[in-house]
């Protein structure tokens, strides 16, 4: 069922698959599967999750708001880990960018006129980078985000069965 998608070299699924597999192999190469303590496992899980998120975001590039937000979050997190100063710097510039975009888009953010403020806020928290979007874009981003998440899930489920 998934194969026809994989045949298409430019589909989201194939892009994500290649990236993710690459990241996985890198992780596996880094650290042997010897750890059994929960800490180690969790750390490994974290790394995998980050790799998954990163590969997903990268395969979407910056075409989507949520992918941009996620990429920025990942980068700032990694910067923060390496060097606090640079993290601050990049965080500032990136935040300036995000705030600018939010200012542009916040003309109709709260004032929906449709009356879905609570749900919209909750959705904003769920979708990365959703705070800077008005309802219209939020719905758009949500659709794409759902599509990406389902892709991820579809790709994860066959892995690990073997």
């Amino acid at each position, binding site marked *: 069922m998934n194969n026809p998608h994989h045949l298409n070299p430019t589909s989201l699924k194939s892009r994500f698959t290649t990236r993710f597999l690459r990241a996985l192999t890198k992780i596996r190469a880094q650290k042997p599967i010897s750890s059994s303590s929960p800490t180690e496992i969790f750390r490994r899980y974290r790394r995998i999750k980050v790799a998954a998120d990163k590969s997903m975001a990268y395969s979407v590039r910056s075409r989507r708001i949520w992918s941009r937000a996620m990429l920025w979050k990942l980068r700032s997190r990694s910067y923060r880990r390496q060097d606090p100063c640079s993290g601050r710097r990049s965080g500032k510039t990136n935040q300036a960018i995000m705030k600018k975009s939010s200012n542009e888009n916040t*003309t109709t953010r709260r004032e929906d006129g449709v009356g879905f403020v609570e749900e919209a806020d909750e959705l904003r928290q769920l979708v990365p980078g959703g705070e800077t979007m008005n309802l219209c874009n939020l*719905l758009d981003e949500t659709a794409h985000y759902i599509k990406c998440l389902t892709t991820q899930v579809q790709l994860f489920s066959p892995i690990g069965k073997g």
Partner: protein
Amino acid sequence: MQPCSREMQAMNSLLSPTQPIPLQDLQPNGNSGTHQAQIHNPQFDPTSSHDDFLDQMLSTLPSCSWSDLKSPWDPPKSDETPPSNPDNNAGFHYDEILASKLRQHQINGGGGGTTAAMKMMMQQQMLLPGRPIAAAGGGGLTMPLHNDIVDGSSFKSPNQQGGEGSVQALYNGFGAGPLHGTNNQSPNQPQHFHHPQGGNMQTQSFGATAGTVMNQSQASGSTTGGTPAQPKQRVRARRGQATDPHSIAERLRRERIAERMKALQELVPNANKKDKASMLDEIIDYVKFLQLQVKVLSMSRLGGAAAVAPLVADMPPEGGDCVQTTAGGGGSLQRNSNGNQPSANNDSLTVTEHQVAKLMEEDMGSAMQYLQGKGLCLMPISLATAISTATCHSRNPMMNKGSSSNHPLLQSNGDGPSSPSMSVLTVQSATMGNGGLDGSAKDAASVSKP
């Protein structure tokens, strides 16, 4: 207001159906039939390729129509100051005519490949606010690509935004839906305007321009009046109906939101849209569910063989170096070795997780009851896997087994480390399509509501 508008009015007075004469004057091929048909170039070859189509359009239309248009414009410009009509009512007449004509061109000849060329041409022309012809031409030419609304905003948008944003704003001005096809994706026929995932930047800038543009009372008469559901009849004929730019903007936004909701509805499995609020709730739940699913799958399948609970804190006797991703449950659970999951996503993931974690601390039984009250249960991942791949038979014995043990349903894979390692809330659900879980997903361990 601005030179464009006046010239638009001039054009309108020229080309409105009530004044067929100027149109017929423009026709190099004489008058026959409706004036609409006349602008059809008889030499137009509907089966030509995209480039040929563009060439033909560019050659014929500008040569005959535009140049002829130019001349009659200047004299009537002074005469034409109809105060009654709002600014771009005129322009809309003109655009509609062109739209219908060019749409037929488009439908016949296929305009997919012409997008880039058209864009270039229009970009050059639209960026000059003092070129009403170009604006009209650009507007007219873009009509076939999307038969929508806010025509006026397109004339305004190049004035407002310079640079590359203007072209997209121009597209945006013609409506969000069909625009999706124009820019990046396959610019199909104008009928295909429902691209839920397309038109990212366009729609955003449209959202921005629409608010500002409407405020300039540009698209006062043009927009709305028709539902976006009919692709071919998107020519907005309601003029002067709603002159309030804010209401028009509101209506537009509502339409676009409705479009997006429809698209989302298709994605989300439970798609009985009774009302939008419940639909939104459904969407939210589904996103949470998917995020949880990804987390669980990545953790369980890839993070290690043993079932570890990233979502639920380990029992206190463990020393608490398990992480709690639900960040902030009981006080004793904060001894996170990695101390993270800082993102707000996890916090808001599920209140259920919080509750379950808290309850699990105290008493497994109450936790299980809480879960079952919600129609969920915990199960070890291996069993969940087995269930998902096999039929539902394994479910019952699993249930029985679980209830009779000390840690109901929490017996892990059999590694049996000394400290009870909890299994994760699995996310097998019918939507996964993993097997025969369709009706039974409700009882099985799933975070989705039954």
